[in-house]
Structure formats: structure tokens, C-alpha cells
């Protein structure tokens, strides 16, 4: 009898364990469904991502941070940060084919805020100066990068399916893709300039940390001037191909933070979100396409973005970038929004409500509808946003 009872109890416990859904990934966790080898890459890549570089190991001579995790830090590696950096470009609306000069010839578009001791000693500078004639400088905050591997796996065709540059459906929302300098469709960065996650990561090592690598084997210039001799003692590339690939794997395999369980009020807020037209740009779900990595293949990601450019109005305008005019920005993914402490591309909004209030351009109608909502509906929508 006792033995029977024990067997039954064990069987019930086993059944319960089988039925229990796998725990949802928390911020910083890997995507579910990775192979053992991919999981090992993720773990090793985290170590590269969390590395702190010094001048002898390649830091700088111009840099914004001494490692990836210095900025992407909260609540864990890959998260948001409080750093704000400078981007600059010059807009030439009267120059067809070259309306946006990203100042690539003179150290742009990212102008670093820190220098190594050697560069300071050689040039007496504390940060990279902006070239003459630059009138607009954009502030850029550090977003979280959770779920970006899934965004990378969304086919171009999906992005293009949301584009309506001539507003043929008459809803006031256009949306058009940005393009990289070689014509490919962009999706990463606040202006959707960079086509792939790998390129964004590889470029960021050099631009943000001053770490050359097989993809970007040369250091940048100091506002267009070559580095003074002796200021960059580490041999190039300062990061080898294997470490670069591991860092990319870590970023690529970071799971998106799963939305929190929604209360009844938050569920109502989601309905309001749809009713006032937020989802016209903040598309709730994107679907990935074929991918060699099963965990990224044919997955749904609650990204709340269309990865397209939209005119956000003159109030938010700063720099051009690729095809993006100063007032055009990529729809910011709202996944992981609850982890942010500042909002919009430059962090000027302290709350999601302020951010909504600052929307203009194509979002004017939705913003105005939000403003005119009963207080309870506004509160419900904001509560919904806190679950993302």
C-alpha cells in the first residue's frame, strides 16, 4: 500500500512536471531552443561582451566606452544604459543622390567622447571634435538589445509589406525603408540604417570601443586626421575573428523579454493601443523567416515595430542618416520597454506618457486621440506599455 501510494505520488509529480511550461526567459537569458553548441557560444560570447578593454589591449584611441557592457548594462548585460553619445551629419536637401553627408570623411557619424591617455598627450584633446560647419548634433541613448537576433531574422519582404510611402491607404501613416550606403534595406539603429546585426556589432566594436577587428581592420580618424604615431600601440586587428563571432552570438541569441502577464486593465490598455492607431507603426508581432538557426527560424517576436522610417515631426528632428531625413526615425521597438528609464531616441522623455506626447508627424493623429481619451483609458494604455 505504501509502495503503491509512493508510485502514484511519483507518477503524479512526474506528470505535473511534464505539463509545467518551460520558464520564460528573463532579461539576459538566451533564446529557448538553442543547441548545446549555440548555448556554449552564447556563454563564451557573454564574456567577450563583458570584457573591459584597456589601451594595451586595444581600447581607443577614440572611444565611447571600454566595453559593450559598460553601456548595455541594466538590468544585465545587453540591457539599457545611461550613456548618451553624439552623432552628427549634414543634411543637403538640395543635393539629389547625396542629401545626407554622414561625415564619414571627417570621423563621423559617431564622434567619440573619450580618448586614451596617449592620444590626449599627443593632441591635448579629451574627445573628438566636431568638424567645422556641423550645426546639428544628435544625442543617442543606449537601448537594450534583447531580441535583436529575431529582428535580424525578419525577412526584408516582411518589412517592405508594411511600407506605404505614398500613403495609398490614406491613414496618414506612410513608412518607408532606410537603406545602407550599398543599397540594402536597413533595420538597426535609431534611423534603421544598418542592414544586419552582425554589421552593427562589428562596426560598434570599432566605433564605440576603438577595437579593430577582421570586419573593420582600421582605426577611425580624429575628425578626419590620421592618428598621431604611437597613439595606438596594440596590433590590428585588436579582436580576432573567433572572439568577434562569439560576441555576435551572444547578442544574436539574447531572448526578448517576454511580456508580463496582463491584468484586466492592461488588456484593456492593449485594446486602446490598437484603437488609437499606435499599432499602425508599432506592429505588435513580426515573424522571422527561414534561418539556419532553428531558434530564430519562423518565430514570432512581439517587437512592436515595423522597422520602417516614419516622419515624427519637426519637434523631434535632429540629423539625417542614409535616406532618413532629420525628422524621420525608425519605429522604436517596444519590446522590453519596461526596462527603460528614459524614452525616445535621445532620452528626453522621462515617462512613456511624455514620449507619446512628443510624437508628431505621422503619429499626430494617434497622439491626439490618446490625449482625448478618458483618463481611465489613458491609464490603461500606459499600464499595458509597462507590461512590454
Amino acid at each position: 500500500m505504501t509502495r503503491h501510494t509512493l508510485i502514484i505520488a511519483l507518477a503524479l509529480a512526474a506528470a505535473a512536471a511534464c505539463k509545467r511550461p518551460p520558464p520564460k526567459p528573463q532579461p539576459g537569458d538566451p533564446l529557448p531552443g538553442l543547441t548545446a553548441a549555440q548555448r556554449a557560444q552564447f556563454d563564451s560570447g557573454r564574456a567577450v561582451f563583458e570584457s573591459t578593454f584597456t589601451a594595451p589591449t586595444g581600447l581607443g584611441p577614440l572611444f565611447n566606452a571600454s566595453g559593450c557592457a559598460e553601456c548595455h548594462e541594466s538590468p544585465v548585460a545587453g540591457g539599457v544604459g545611461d550613456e548618451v553619445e553624439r552623432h552628427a551629419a549634414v543634411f543637403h536637401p538640395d543635393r539629389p543622390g547625396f542629401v545626407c553627408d554622414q561625415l564619414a570623411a571627417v570621423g563621423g557619424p559617431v564622434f567619440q567622447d573619450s580618448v586614451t591617455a596617449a592620444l590626449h598627450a599627443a593632441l591635448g584633446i579629451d574627445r573628438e571634435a566636431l568638424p567645422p560647419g556641423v550645426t546639428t548634433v544628435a544625442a543617442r541613448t543606449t537601448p537594450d538589445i534583447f531580441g535583436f537576433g529575431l529582428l535580424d531574422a525578419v525577412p526584408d519582404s516582411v518589412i517592405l509589406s508594411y511600407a506605404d510611402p505614398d500613403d495609398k491607404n490614406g491613414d496618414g501613416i506612410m513608412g518607408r525603408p532606410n537603406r545602407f550606403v550599398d543599397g540594402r534595406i536597413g533595420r538597426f539603429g535609431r534611423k534603421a540604417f544598418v542592414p544586419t546585426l552582425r554589421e552593427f556589432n562589428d562596426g560598434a566594436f570599432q566605433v564605440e570601443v576603438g577595437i579593430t577587428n577582421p570586419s573593420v581592420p582600421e582605426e577611425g580618424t580624429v575628425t578626419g586626421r590620421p592618428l598621431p604615431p604611437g597613439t595606438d600601440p596594440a596590433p590590428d586587428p585588436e579582436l580576432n575573428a573567433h572572439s568577434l563571432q562569439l560576441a555576435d552570438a551572444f547578442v544574436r541569441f539574447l531572448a526578448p523579454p517576454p511580456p508580463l502577464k496582463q491584468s484586466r486593465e492592461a488588456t484593456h490598455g492593449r485594446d486602446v493601443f490598437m484603437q488609437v492607431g499606435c499599432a499602425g507603426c508599432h506592429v505588435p508581432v513580426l515573424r522571422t523567416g527561414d534561418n539556419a538557426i532553428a531558434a530564430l527560424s519562423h518565430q514570432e517576436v512581439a517587437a512592436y515595430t515595423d522597422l520602417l522610417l516614419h516622419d515624427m515631426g519637426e519637434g523631434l528632428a535632429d540629423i539625417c542618416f542614409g535616406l532618413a531625413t532629420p525628422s524621420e526615425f525608425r519605429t522604436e521597438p517596444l519590446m522590453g520597454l519596461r526596462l527603460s528609464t528614459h524614452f525616445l531616441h535621445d532620452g528626453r522623455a522621462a515617462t512613456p506618457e511624455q514620449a507619446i506626447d512628443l510624437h508628431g508627424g505621422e503619429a499626430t493623429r494617434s497622439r491626439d486621440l490618446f490625449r482625448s481619451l478618458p483618463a481611465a483609458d489613458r491609464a490603461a494604455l500606459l499600464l499595458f506599455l509597462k507590461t512590454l
Partner: protein
Amino acid sequence: MRRIALLFVPLFTVPLAAAIAQQHTAAPPAPPAAAPAVPHDSVRGAIRSIDVRSRTVEVTAGVGYALRVVALQIPASVSITNRHGSQPDVIALGQLKLGDVVRAQFGGKAAPFVVYTIERLGRMTTGVDSTP
């Protein structure tokens, strides 16, 4: 005295001649001015400036936000292949426009680098592989 002086002459002249001979042997032969070098790099990006008179173009390229500008000199003997249309054809330098996406192979030690092949692939505004 005179004989002694004559004996010393080879002591100085022979090593000197040998050194000169060695210098001539060690120094690589100067390449003829028009000798082609082997292309050592390639670039794909958007044209940001064109100077038809000097036959030079500047191309913006890069990886992510790590952008660079590559100055290219296109010899008159190099054809510019237009692959943007339905059939590839050859176009003149003056037909290239700002914002055209090109792919080029080039060589040389300093900018402007010498182009060996160059193709026009499309325009940045409308893309290369897919269009909005």
C-alpha cells in the same frame, strides 16, 4: 711613397665598388610608369562625389556605423559596367550620379586608388536587391 699609395687604392675602391654593385642588385627594379598593379581591395558603396575631369569618384562604404570614404581614380581604359538595367551595358563616367551604388576593385598605395573594374549596381534611393 707613390707605390704605397697605389697599393692602398684598391683597399678603398674595391669595397666601394662592391657596395655600389650590391646596392644596385638589392634595389628592386623601378616599375614602368604605366605598369598595372594587382587589385588588392574592393569596395561597394554609394558615390558621394564625382570629378569627371580628373576621372575620380569618392565612394562611401563601411560596416555598420564604421563608415569610410574611398577615393578612386578610374583610368580611361576601364569600362564602367551598368548592371542596373535589364541588360548590362557600358556607360560613360559622366553618366554616373551621386547616390549610385557601385562595386569596384582597386589597387595602389595611396588615394586615389586605381580602379581595375567598376560596376554600377543601382541607386541608394531605390536599392539594389529589392525596391519599396
